[in-house]
């Protein structure tokens, strides 16, 4: 039996259809990626699955329980790491975890052991007695993830969990989460704007304007994009473009002084092109499409525009907090 079943779920805010009739199933022990541009309806969907928002229409079951009728049973079964900060600034890390453990009725032995394990993993054990006010953004983020795992949920919802964390920390957290999945059959429902993080997913749903536009394994989604990506730079990019267009009937694009083009069966095409090319080539590369390409292909938008975008997201999160 699937651990999450969503049937024609919708949420309307006044005029805005934030979520527009989505249906999908998630199996127990699966890492389910939920990707989409800003404002696509990811957080709204999570809020409905986590009983924080009443759906306008449709149904959803989590761990076999109805999210409208059996709210408290659903809440017991899930852990949620919110997109924005939800810690008590005036309390210490240890007290924040204590509150959580008490609220979920975690036995005190288990609490002590898990608190130590999780805070050590997040490299916060030494700072456990400091008030959250004195924490950096990344430390807060790590504490939120730790807190969501204290009560051993069956399903863990992660709404952009690692925003602003450095790559090593992200890897360490993922190792731990995937290990929990192995050992305890933890199911993970993930939204992220990091494509390498999305790669952890067994399946990915792409949502845009409140509707699911694709749902498949990462590999199948990449195949769907249509061919491999060839990137070429040369002294004369225009010549490259012309050749690709005229000789092979392809549609090249120029980005930052390199020409990129999508070709099915890139391995065969590459030597053929090099042999026939009349100018001088500087470099040439061939790669499988990434999730980034998938995302661009499906939504017409970059999943994120470099670092600037990350800062903008942080700013928005801050603004949302202080509004």
């Amino acid at each position, binding site marked *: 039996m699937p651990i999450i079943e969503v049937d024609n779920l919708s949420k309307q805010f006044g005029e805005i259809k934030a979520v527009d009739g989505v249906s999908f199933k998630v199996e127990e022990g699966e890492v389910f990626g939920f990707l989409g541009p800003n404002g696509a309806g990811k957080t709204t969907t999570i809020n409905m699955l*986590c*009983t*924080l*928002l*009443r759906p306008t229409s449709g149904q959803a079951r989590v761990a076999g329980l109805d999210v409208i009728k059996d*709210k*408290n*049973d659903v*809440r*017991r079964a*899930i852990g*949620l790491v*919110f997109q*924005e*900060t*939800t*810690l*008590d*600034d*005036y*309390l210490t890390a240890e*007290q924040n975890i204590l*509150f*959580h453990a*008490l*609220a*979920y*009725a975690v036995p005190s032995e288990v609490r002590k052991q898990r608190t130590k394990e999780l805070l050590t993993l997040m490299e916060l054990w030494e700072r456990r007695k400091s*008030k959250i006010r004195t924490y950096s953004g990344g430390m807060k983020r790590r504490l939120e993830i730790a*807190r969501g795992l204290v009560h051993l949920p069956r399903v863990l919802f992660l709404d952009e969990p690692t925003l602003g964390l450095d790559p090593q920390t992200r890897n360490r957290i993922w190792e731990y989460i995937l290990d929990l999945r192995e050992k305890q059959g933890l199911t993970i429902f993930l939204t992220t704007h990091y494509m390498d993080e999305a790669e952890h997913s067994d399946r990915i749903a792409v949502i845009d304007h409140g509707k699911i536009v694709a749902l498949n394994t990462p590999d199948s989604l990449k195949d769907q994009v249509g061919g491999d990506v060839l990137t070429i730079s040369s002294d004369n990019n225009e010549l490259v473009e012309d050749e690709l267009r005229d000789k092979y009937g392809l549609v090249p694009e120029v980005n930052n002084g390199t020409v990129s083009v999508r070709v099915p069966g890139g391995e065969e095409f590459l030597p053929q092109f090099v042999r026939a090319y009349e100018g001088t080539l500087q470099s040439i590369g061939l790669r499988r499409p990434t999730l980034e390409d998938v995302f661009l292909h499906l939504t017409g938008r970059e999943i994120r525009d470099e670092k600037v975008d990350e800062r903008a997201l942080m700013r928005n999160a801050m603004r949302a*907090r202080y*509004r």
Partner: protein
Amino acid sequence: MSETYRGIWVVAFRELLRFVADRSRMISSFMFPLIFLVVFGAGFSRIVGRLEGDVNFIQFIYPGIIAMTVVMSSLFAGTSVVVDREYGFLKEVLVAPLSRVGIILGKALGGSLTALIQGTIMLAIAPLVGLSISPLLVLQLLPTLLVLSLSLSGLGILMATRMRSQQGFQFLMQLMVFPLIFLSGVFFPVQGVPTWLQIVAKFNPLTYGVDAIRQIFLGPRASGSVAELPGNETISTGVILFNHPMGIIEDVAVIGAIGAVLLLAGVWSFSRTEA
């Protein structure tokens, strides 16, 4: 049911943790009542003269000041709801397996316990105004303060359930606090004001709180009896409801009843706003 009990004590426990962590709040809720005590007490005691039973004006308002301290910090239960919503912590509470009724009652209980602590600390200055404290007095006072603060926490929460911003809530609070305090008989006998004001004051739960605490300190004489004012006019310093001078137990019962209504309304309003 266990979600309700757990909600109550877990939420109340966190309010206490936070109270201990945030000293500025403690100081600010003392400042106001203390300033009133000093300014009004010193300013008026010469003009007002002695009340019956050899009670001077500072002693007359001191019980009211304790009530006022409790009220200020009880209403903070409301602020706490709004702050939690604004800073996101409310989501952590709402997604936990705790019932909405439990969460709200926990906020009220947490607010009341902190109010009780502050009220008790205010007791320390009783000797300074010439009033003595006995174990019996403390035993009567604490339950009275608890009922009063639960009741006013209910009011704070009811106001908070619909508010999204701290500023908006603070504004609403200021708007409420002054009439609440000035129309409660802290500074003057309720029976001594024009009829329409008397009627308003008798809907104010704080009126009964002040009356009960005053009787606990000054004895039943202070209530239902008369005070001599300059010009030989005499009025009762206590509260008279339907021609009946109120006793301590009756006062507490009235506060409890008003509080129950406020808390129920708060719970209802909160459960409607938060799914």
